[in-house]
């Protein structure tokens, strides 16, 4: 099917295929396995590209597959072009793919990275600060109280559920301390992410580069690497040793893929 689709793609005149794949890149951002073009749009495409229904489907599915793989591996445009040429796709068409990917790819990858799926997600934060003057059981209060509104959206419904939580000064301070602590953990996590990311590429040079630049994460790097990726142990130890060197001596630009 892939080869057949290739031949269909190859047979498309260059100008038209460029437009087709450019449009398609925009729609691939849904990546939900649903039909990206409506029936009407498909008809227009068939007319524009002079393809029958089956051929068009094949072309669209193949393009989708190529782009999904590109997103999954976060491949560089040049590498994508090279890979497509290896599977005997016309260099012109490969270049079109590569250019579309270069234009829309990074944004798409970022969007997917941010798109966490969870049954319930926090969407909105609102608040209100009140000064309570009295209540049934007490007069002359003058106590400040804050109401935090958390808008939580469920995966399976459009409606947002509002949760209201009240805090007095002391309770709010305790909550804020907890939130700050979580923030510190999140920051460490980000450092760990960087270390994990580079360690997996099994590139001592890169590890050294990162670890020297961000001293704080040196220890975390060692722990995570040693624990999660056993064969990265060597890599991790190298990181620690080199960390004492000044940054300018070890600043290497990592060769990413």
């Amino acid at each position, binding site marked *: 099917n892939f080869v057949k689709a290739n031949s269909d793609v190859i047979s498309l005149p260059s100008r038209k295929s460029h437009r087709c794949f450019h449009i398609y890149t925009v729609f691939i951002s849904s*990546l939900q396995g649903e039909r990206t073009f409506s029936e009407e749009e498909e008809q227009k495409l068939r007319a524009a590209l002079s393809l029958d229904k089956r051929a068009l489907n094949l072309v669209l599915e193949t393009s989708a597959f190529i782009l*999904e793989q590109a*997103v*999954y*591996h*976060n491949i560089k445009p040049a590498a994508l072009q090279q890979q497509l040429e290896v599977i005997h796709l016309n260099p012109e068409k490969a270049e079109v793919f590569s250019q579309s990917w270069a234009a829309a790819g990074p944004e798409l*990858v970022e969007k*997917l*990275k*941010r798109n*966490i799926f*969870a*049954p*319930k*997600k*926090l*969407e909105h*934060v609102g*608040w209100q*600060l009140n*000064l309570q003057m009295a*209540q*049934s*059981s*007490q*007069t*002359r*209060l*003058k106590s*400040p109280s*804050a*109401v*935090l509104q*958390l808008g*939580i959206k469920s995966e399976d419904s459009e409606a947002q559920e509002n*949760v*209201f*939580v*009240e*805090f007095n*000064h002391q*309770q*709010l*301070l305790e*909550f*804020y301390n*907890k*939130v*700050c602590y*979580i*923030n510190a*953990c*999140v920051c460490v*996590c*980000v450092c*760990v*992410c960087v270390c*994990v*990311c580079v360690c*997996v590429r099994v590139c001592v040079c890169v590890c050294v580069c990162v670890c020297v630049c961000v001293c704080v994460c040196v220890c975390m790097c060692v722990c995570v690497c040693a624990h999660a990726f056993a064969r990265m142990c060597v890599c991790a130890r190298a990181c620690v040793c080199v960390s004492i060197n000044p940054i300018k001596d070890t600043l290497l630009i990592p060769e990413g893929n």
Partner: protein
Amino acid sequence: MSSSHAKDPSFLGGRIPPEIESMSRNLKDVDHELFRKLLKAVVSALEGKDCREVMRSVAEGSVIPQERLSHIIAGMHRLLSEAIRIPPSSLKQEAFKDDLRMLKMPEDFITDFSSVVFGSRRAALEAASSQKDPHLPTLEEFKWRVDVSISTSSLSRALQPSVLTQMKLSDGTFHRFEVPVSKFQELRYNVALILKEMNDLEKRSILKIQD
């Protein structure tokens, strides 16, 4: 017709509540021991405990008819509730005692009332009574977890942290939800902003005015 104090109005207001008036009438020839038992039971009731058994045993062991006892208990309850309502900065112990003397109550009883209102149990009484007032749920328990998604079906290297929070509120509800990092930073910013506003508010002169 009740009479108010010549200088300042009593802490009970311009008009003495009827329960308190009837209590002061019925407190005649009540011995101190019985009074203390009743006061103790009423304080427990105000703190939210079930004191039906205690009341029953006191009523059975006493020579005073139940009707009179019920007037006394009602009066005590009302008196203590009204006294707890006013913060100690506004109602001083001496003024409180003076107001009770106006009701022609024996001095021992006044001392006992005073020790409840201005003593160590006051905080518990205040907390218990404010429970019944309307308020939004407060945060009872806050649990969290930081996750890093290494890989997803769409991306082989996602590496995005996210925070999973579980909140238990005072009304018993549980809320478990995921907070993306950007929203978490927004939440942190907003909480810091509220704290700053609260600090500014507390420094303002309106709060320094004593009443």
